[in-house]
């Protein structure tokens, strides 16, 4: 019976996510004045789909097939999240009156998929993740008060600069190593990844410098030197994923603001030379690259992670094994870097493709916000933040499916991780706030 319910749920999950996306499409088309649907109805259908997905998967996860009892702890997590989501659904429009409903729904759906997957993989982490979700929601709910008070974010640029430099230096001297990269700070029992926080601070600074209407060469050179310093220090902390994201974001900002093809060309050149040097200096990059080119050659060591990930993708195919039926725990660091493989395995490739499309929907709305914003600084800021998240998503999904070499970064809103979760919320909080400002008459 249990197996049967899992089997049926496999198709139900697809129904939920496809209906969700169908509503997304209707909303987008209506906003573009192509069709006429009631956006509110569509959004509330999405809300229902998320709740159905959530309850359905938690019922499967909380049921113990041997004792035939439901686990109360799991049901509590289920219930608490429904409260959180429902609350968010009603109160976020108070602080973000012009915020984009579709974006909120998409973000919370991703969070829920992450939570369900974590509950499946490691209930302890799911409980913590729920806590992070609450915290993230609270911050994002209250953020507009601070933002409305500051109003012009660019005026604090030196504060961002100083803070990010402090972060970098403290990690350099007091950082802990995890997964080959020295990018963790531990304060008593509390650990966090400063590079995640630097992301926002650095971009706030960079955009403040480069979004000025009339750029003189000196205005470009100074931020470039500082960016170079930040990126190099990340490289030496062996946090190459973050270094790459920073570099690409820097290039995007400078391309958008200067429109210079020459700078773009130099950037590509620098990145080629940089990767060549990094490849020759760092042993772990060599391992990553050879694991990417032919993971089967060294399946027991260097290629272990990626081959296990590919097994998760390939064994069950388009429809997946059904929730609880796969073996995602065989993949190393599945709760963080490889969570996408776990989703592919149990929910199937079609579901996974839908997740990529949900990310794309979010980035589409962000870009629309950037294009609509009449304030130059804010417009560039939104595109920079979007590109940052976009590239990070591409890096990690591309890595686990072996499209590109693996870099250990988190999948926004889905991977386990407090810092990553809160920072992602803050980033989209800023974007929604700008969206809200733009929407005001």
């Amino acid at each position, binding site marked *: 019976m249990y197996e049967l319910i899992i089997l049926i749920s496999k198709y139900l999950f697809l129904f939920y996510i496809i209906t969700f996306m169908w509503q997304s499409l209707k909303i987008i088309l209506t906003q573009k004045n192509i069709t006429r649907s009631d956006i509110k109805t569509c959004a509330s259908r999405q809300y229902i789909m998320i709740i159905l997905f959530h309850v359905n998967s938690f019922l499967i996860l909380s049921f113990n097939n041997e004792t035939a009892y439901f686990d109360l702890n799991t049901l509590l997590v289920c219930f608490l999240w429904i409260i959180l989501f429902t609350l968010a659904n009603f109160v976020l429009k108070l602080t973000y009156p012009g915020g984009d409903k579709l974006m909120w729904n998409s973000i919370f759906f991703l969070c829920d998929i992450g939570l369900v997957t974590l509950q499946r993989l490691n209930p302890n982490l799911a409980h913590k993740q729920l806590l992070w979700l609450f915290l993230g929601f609270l911050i994002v709910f209250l953020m507009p008060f601070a933002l409305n008070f500051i109003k012009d974010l660019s005026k604090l640029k030196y504060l961002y600069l100083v803070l990010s430099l402090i972060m970098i230096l403290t990690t350099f001297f007091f950082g802990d190593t995890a997964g080959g990269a020295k990018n963790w700070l531990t304060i008593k029992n509390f650990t966090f990844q400063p590079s995640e926080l630097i992301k926002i601070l650095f971009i706030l600074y960079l955009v403040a410098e480069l979004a000025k209407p009339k750029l003189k060469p000196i205005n470009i050179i100074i931020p470039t030197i500082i960016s170079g310093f930040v990126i190099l220090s990340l490289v030496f902390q062996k946090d190459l994923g973050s270094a790459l994201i920073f570099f690409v974001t820097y290039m995007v900002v400078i391309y*958008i603001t200067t429109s210079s093809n020459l700078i773009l060309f130099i950037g590509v050149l620098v990145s080629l030379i940089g990767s060549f040097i990094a490849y020759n200096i760092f042993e772990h990059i060599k391992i990553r690259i050879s694991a990417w080119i032919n993971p089967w050659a060294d399946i027991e060591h260097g290629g272990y992670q990626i081959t296990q990930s590919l097994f998760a993708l*390939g064994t069950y195919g388009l429809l997946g094994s059904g929730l609880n039926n796969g*073996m995602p725990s065989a993949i190393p660091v599945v709760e963080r870097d490889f969570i996408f493989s776990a989703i592919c395995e149990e929910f199937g490739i079609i579901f996974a493709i839908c997740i*990529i499309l949900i990310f794309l929907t979010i*980035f589409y709305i962000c870009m629309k916000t950037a294009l609509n914003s009449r304030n130059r600084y804010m*417009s560039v800021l939104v595109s920079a933040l979007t590109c940052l998240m*976009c590239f990070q998503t*591409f890096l990690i999904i591309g890595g686990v499916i072996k499209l590109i070499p693996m870099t250990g970064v988190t999948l926004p809103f889905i991977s386990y991780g407090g810092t990553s979760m809160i920072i992602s919320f803050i980033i989209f909080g800023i974007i929604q706030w700008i969206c809200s400002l733009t929407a005001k008459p």
Partner: protein
Amino acid sequence: MKKNMKRVFFFYSLLFIALIAHLIYFTIFEKDTSLNSYNPRLNVIDNSIQRGMIFDSNGITLAETVTSGGSIQRNYYYPEEFCHIIGYMPKGKSGLEAKSNFTLQKLDNELYQRIQTIFSETSKPRGNNIFITIDSKLQQYVHEKLGKTKGAVVVLEPQTGKVLSMVSYPDFNPMKIEKNWDNLKNDKDNSPLLNRAAQGLYPPGSTFKILTAGAEIETNSNYESFSYDCEGEDFFDQKKIHCFNSTVHGKIGLSEALENSCNTFFATIGEKFEKGVLFSYAEKAMFNKPFDYTLEYNKSSFTLSETATPTEIVETSIGQGKTLVSPLHMAMITASVANKGIMMKPYIIDHIESYSRNPIDTTEPEVLSEVFSEETAKKLTEMMVKVVENGTGTEAKIKGVSIAGKTGTAENSSGKDHSWFTAFAPSENPKIVVTVLLENAGNGSKAIPLAHDIIKKALNN
């Protein structure tokens, strides 16, 4: 500025589309990468379902999963006879167990089966069943005849490419795989896990002359009038080539040369070929090319480059040199002569049925390559019949049946010569192709009696 933003977003959209495209490509075309012994999932599924069965061409059970007292076991009813075809589990998987794993695990009508299992406590949903092309009686016979000789036998149906029998020795018992695993894995001298019939690569020796003769017939319009005076040995660009036992064959043409496997004759025509002729025939005969065979196999190799020295050319045209071929591939080449010059794709899965005997898939014969013209194939057949009637293969003669064959003695670095015999019968209407390879057996004649017996048995069925 906004234009640049649009460009950037367009670029990122492309990246995301690449992700989706790659995922789809991976699931459709690279699914087989999951069939790996390092993938722990493959065995877990077998515990929750009833893995499909494997049957021979007459519907006799070869492999099935039985559950007794809570423990699940895979039973093999002809363990040694079929070990290289069906393979083993659960110590990783090999053979059909690995290559057709998804078929055996695929639940037809899954929803219905799941509902059914609710009402019966003991049964599990059942996977699809595989029917192979091999007749277990013939397989048993071939296995028994090969006995404890290192080597391989392949029997094919030339018109379809059906594998009728495929045996390799040393073998192993898949029922005792877990107990004997370390010994089997570490036995580098005998490598019992290797399927010599499809994975073993050997110098073809004189059996390669079939191809050289075919090339001669098609490229030299005067081949019938060409003759050569064999003195038992000759020099070709300082390389001394001699016939087997330095036998002097005298003045002979192509047909007599093939009949007696005259090395100096074939060295002479090999030297006369225009550059690339032999290579193009080797490629037509699927050397260096994959042929998408269900089980593990190794590609045969032919490496006569444009810059090959005369010595290499001469050695290659008589089947020595660097050419390597698997017994399966030699059987395919022979089958192409038997099948009017057309090489069929070899296949071992006849059809697949669901648990309820609904047909799921049937293998259709497929043309792999046109090696020779029909005319050439006819000429070659006539010559190969003479090999068995008066030449090096007379031991293969069967009363009332006309057999076409070719012997081969393959010099090699591992010790005594390998012995080849490849044949098809009846020559006027070929029903079977038999290829025998015996490792380090001495000369070509050792393989002939074995082939003789197998042809006799196979035709009587």
